[in-house]
Every structure is written in structure tokens, then in C-alpha cells.
């Protein structure tokens, strides 16, 4: 596939993260995460076509099951059960968040990070975009107050790392990929259980009311 198409997929991931910053509703957040995982899925399939390595196909299938179907499903079921339509707001208001997003992307694209972004000089722009998605998803966790959005932030951070790995040609052997996916799935299950426990104890998913533990 042409780099243009890869660029397009990466831009989708980038946009989903920006959307996650903005969205008010949890359902939309989950939907955005679904699209993101789909983009990762396509990327994996594309690298399968390039290298013709069967294992990549198998991994893509696993990714599809875990990230595209299972995760959003869990979350949707969670939201329906506890009617958590509106996710908690963010710390910074909208314009400020966008300013920070812009600075982070600019920083990621700056020549300062050149040693990382041109590991493979060819897709230098792709790598810097993947790096900026990483910074953005990190900032997402910092900015959002809702527990669910923080979980999604972490999952999108994981997705952006995987994207960076794919573009920087750091694919792993089959065993490692499976191990990583297994971990992510276990982590998903535990996170959802925790969210339901938080909801049961605190009545809302707003992280800021968890303030009791301080010096």
C-alpha cells in the first residue's frame, strides 16, 4: 500500500484521540476507540501483505477480537448497566486543551525528536505523527476526570505505541505479540471490574472525588 494510505490511517488514529479529548459522552468515546483499533487492525493487515508472514494475520485476528469487539463491548455493557451517559469533564477548558494538543504535536514533529522519528528515514513523518499520538493520549489521561476516559486513554496510548512499532519496523515475534495482547486483555477485564467497584463505592466515575488518601 502506498505511504499515503498509511498516512491516512495514522491520521484517523490521531483524530480519534483528538476527538476523545473533546467528547462529552462515554458512548462516543468508546466508538472512537473502536475506530482507532480498527485502524490498527488495517495497519497490521497491510504489513501482512508487505511481509507475507502468516503469523501477522493471526495476530491481526486476535487484535480484532480483543480490541475491536471485546473492549467496546465491555464498556458499552458497563455504561448501559450503570447509565453513565455523560463522562466527567476535563480539567482544562476546551481552547486551552487544544492549545496544549497543538504544542505537543509541534514538539513531537520538531527536530529535537529527530533521532527517534527517523529510525527509518523513509516514514519520518509517520513516526513523528505516531509519537505525537502517544503524547496526546498521555495528556488525555492527565486531562480527563472520568475513570472510563482514563482507561480509554491508556488503551489508546498502547495503540499508538503499537502503531509506532509497526512503522519503525520493530515487529515482534509471534510469542511476544500474543503475550502483549494477553496482558492487555487481562488488564481490560481488571479495569472494567474496578470501574464497576468504583461506581458501587463512589456512586460516580469522577476520579476527583477519590481524594481521601493524602498526607
Amino acid at each position, binding site marked *: 500500500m502506498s505511504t499515503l494510505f498509511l498516512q491516512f490511517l495514522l491520521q484517523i488514529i490521531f483524530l480519534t484521540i483528538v476527538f476523545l479529548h473533546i467528547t462529552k459522552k462515554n458512548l462516543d468515546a468508546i466508538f472512537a476507540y473502536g475506530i482507532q483499533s480498527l485502524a490498527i487492525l488495517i495497519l497490521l493487515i497491510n504489513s501482512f501483505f508487505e511481509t507475507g508472514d502468516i503469523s501477522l494475520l493471526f495476530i491481526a485476528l486476535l487484535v480484532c477480537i480483543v480490541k475491536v469487539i471485546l473492549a467496546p463491548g465491555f464498556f458499552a455493557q458497563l455504561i448501559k448497566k450503570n447509565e453513565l451517559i455523560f463522562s466527567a469533564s476535563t480539567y482544562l477548558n476546551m481552547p486551552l486543551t487544544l492549545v496544549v494538543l497543538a504544542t505537543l504535536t509541534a514538539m513531537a514533529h520538531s527536530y529535537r525528536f529527530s533521532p527517534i522519528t527517523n529510525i527509518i528515514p523513509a516514514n519520518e513523518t509517520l513516526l513523528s505523527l505516531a509519537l505525537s499520538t502517544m503524547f496526546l493520549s498521555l495528556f488525555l489521561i492527565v486531562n480527563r476526570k472520568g475513570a472510563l476516559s482514563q482507561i480509554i486513554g491508556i488503551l489508546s496510548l498502547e495503540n499508538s505505541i503499537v502503531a509506532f512499532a509497526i512503522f519503525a519496523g*520493530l515487529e515482534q515475534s509471534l510469542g511476544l505479540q500474543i503475550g502483549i495482547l494477553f496482558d492487555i486483555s487481562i488488564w481490560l477485564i481488571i479495569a472494567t471490574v474496578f470501574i464497576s467497584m468504583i461506581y458501587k463505592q463512589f456512586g460516580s466515575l469522577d476520579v476527583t472525588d477519590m481524594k481521601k*488518601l493524602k498526607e
Partner: protein
Amino acid sequence: MYQTELLFILISLFAAALLCFLSRNRRLIEVSSLVASGIALMESVAISLQVAHFGANVSGFFSTDALEAVIMLIIAVVGFTSTVYSIEYLRRETSKNIIGLSGVSHLRSRVREYFILLNLFMAMMFLAITVSSPIFAWIFIEATTLSTAFLISFYNKPSSIEGAWKYLIINSIGILLAFFGTLLFFPAMNSGIGNGLITWHLLATSAANLDPLVIKVAFIFIFIGYGTKVGFAPMHTWKPDAYSRAPAPIGALFSGALLPVAFAVILKFKMITDATVGSLFSQNLFIIFGLLSVAIAAAIIFVSRNYKRLLAYSSIENAGIMALGFAFGGLGIFAAMLHMVYHSFIKSALFFSSGNLLLAYHSAKIASVRGVINIIPVTAVLFLTGFFAITGAPPFGIFFTKIFILSAGIKEHPFIVATVVLLATILFIGFLKHASAMVFGQPPADIVKEKEGLWLIIPPIALMALALLLSFYIPPFLYTLLNKIALHY
């Protein structure tokens, strides 16, 4: 050739976990976990003896050299003592129903769940340290986080949920950053052997042709990532919350076993970065974060109000001192490793005694714990000797290791050494203020003097005795291992 012993440890631990999962009988659960951790202890001693004699062994999936052997020893000892302790501790807690549980059946399932996760946690730690590939090491460390999440929220109270949540979120971010760092180590690699298993050994040998700048960035991600797990200064915020909410034996396992494991992984990466970039870069990083950790820990201990958080900050401070030890190099590394061994044993003993305090006083607030010497004298003596040991009073080894680390550092960084000594004094003053306030004074009226559980005292006494013995007589095999580490890292 140690494959068999290693597999034996893992199999026994997994079997214990499985058994706890299946059986309802509480006695069986306790005995099986005890047997599993006992086997782990014997096997790890055997392995470290072999490593001391025959040198490192890199075989397929597992690789154990000097550092891994020492860390395995630490995990095994701390693991065994905390299993012994948790049996009695949980029995006491369930009888006093401190665990916010309703109904006996629900209660038995919580205990079962505790032992399953405990065995899994120890298995994961063993795997994380002995596995030969950095990515697998990452996977198993991630697994330790997951297995302990529920252990922290064991008491099912809002504050323990909050502690567990913060632990989960912050550690997941740290682990993901470490994941990214590990991946960055591989760009020049896969051109070589395709998708073969990239092992530590391979990384070390091909360190020369890695791109220095990428390696620097990678090491920063590794250091910040795994540093969250170890608890260096800016990333330490989860530690006091998690330790103060987790049951005492789990706190002991965290600071006694998990901290050395994460530290060891950072050290392995440090070895590789030093080979490519030269040791100055990693030393500066260690010094800055080490100093920051000691400073923040010293400051907060001065005004802390909860004795379990006090122990958490003491772990942060000791992690900082170990980092300084590794940064100063030469004798410092030998002393830092020794410091790690002493710290794990003494800190676990302190955690066990804090568990006893909690059982007697039902509150973790320093203000509400008074006159411990009259209520539970043995724990009071243990807590006080533990305090003196951890802050570096002579009969115990930490005094020597601190002096060696400082003497290694005085050559190039006199001012840093001076600040560390000053901070150590402030920490001593803060810690003493709380320890003497708790141990002496008039006990509150409603606390009645009761006979202390035998099995609640034996593990901490055993650990303190071991630490005292080690501070005067270091067995030859341990000495050779530590020397190998000092040369290697």
C-alpha cells in the same frame, strides 16, 4: 542446567495457585501456599549456589546470572516469610472481621482469592527476573501489577479501592512507557536475526552498533517507566497510597521483592546503555532521581501521620540511596546491592510489625497508637530495632552500606554526598519522632494488653536475625555473587 530447579519453582507456585482456586478447604490453601513458597526458597538457594560456582547460565527461555540469583534469593526469602505471616495474619483478621466482609462464605472466598493472587504474584516475580527476553520481562512485570491490583483492594473499603485504582492507573502508564522504551532498543536488532527471541545477552553483545541517541531516549523511557514501579521521586505517588491500604504482608512483598525486581530490570538496561553511550549519562540520571527521591521522602516523613505511609516513604528513600550507590560505581555498586538485600529483609520485618500494630490498635494513624511497649512489647522492640536498622544504626548492615556508598560518591560528588547526609539526618529525626511517640507514652484506655500471636512474631524476628547475621558474616557464595554484580554492572 538450572532449568529444572527454575521450572520446579514455577510449577509448584502455579500448582499452589490452582489448588487454592479449586479447593474450599482453608487449611489446604494455607498449607499448599506454604509448601510452594518453601520449595521456592530451597530451590533459589540451590540455584544461587550453582550460579556462584559455575557462573551465569543462558539457556533458551531462562537466563540466570549473578544479579538474578541474588534477586531470586531476596524474593524467595521475603515471599516465604510473608506467606507464613499472612496465614496467621488473615486468621487473626477474619476472627476480628477487620476485612469489611459480610457472611462467612464470602469471607472464605476472599481468603482463597488472597492466596491465589499471592502465589501468582510470586510466580510472576520469579518469571520476570529470570526470563531471558526484555519483552517477556515486561509482560511478567505487567502481570505482577495485575495480580496485585485486587490484593490492594482486599479490604473492599472506599479508600482501598482508591489506593488500588491509583496503583493500577499509574503503574499501567509506567509500564507502557517502559514498553515503548524496550521497543526502542530493538531498531538495529531485527535486521540481524529476523524474528528470533531478542535476549538480554544478545542486546549486551550487540550494544556497540546501537544508535547512541535512540538508546539514550529509550533508556529515559525505561527509567521513567520502571522507575514508577521502583518508586523514584516524581513517579512515587502511588506507593504510599497502595502500601497503606494493602495488607501488611503484601506491603512487605511490594517493597521487599517487587522493588528489587524492577530495579534489576533497570540495571540490566543500564548495562546495555553504558556499553553504547558510556556510563556518565545513566549515572547523572540515577543521581538526579535518587537525590530527588531521598529529598522528598525525608521531607514527607517529617510530617507524615500514618505509619504505613511512613514505611512506604522509607522504601522510596532507600530506593534513592540504592540509585545513588549504582550511580557512584566501584564500591558503590557492591554496597548498593548489599543495601538492597538488607533493605528487603529489614523493611519486610518492619511491615510485619506494622501489621501487628494494626491488629492491636485497629488504626494506622500514628496519633492513635501510643504506649506500644506496654501493649505488645515484642512488636515494639521489633519496630524500634527495625527503625534503628533501616535508618542505619551500626549493628545492622545498612550503616556500613550507606557509608560505603557515600565514600564511593565523595570522590566526584562531595556536595551531593553532603546533601544526602543532611537529608538522612532529617529523615532519622522525623522517623524517630514518630517511632518514639508510638512506642512510649501512655496506651489509650480501650486497648487491652493481649498475648501476641507466636506466628506473628517469628517471621519478623527471623528476618531481623538474618539481616543482623548478614551484616557481620556474608556467606562466601553471596560474596562471590555480589562481586560479580559489582564487576558486571
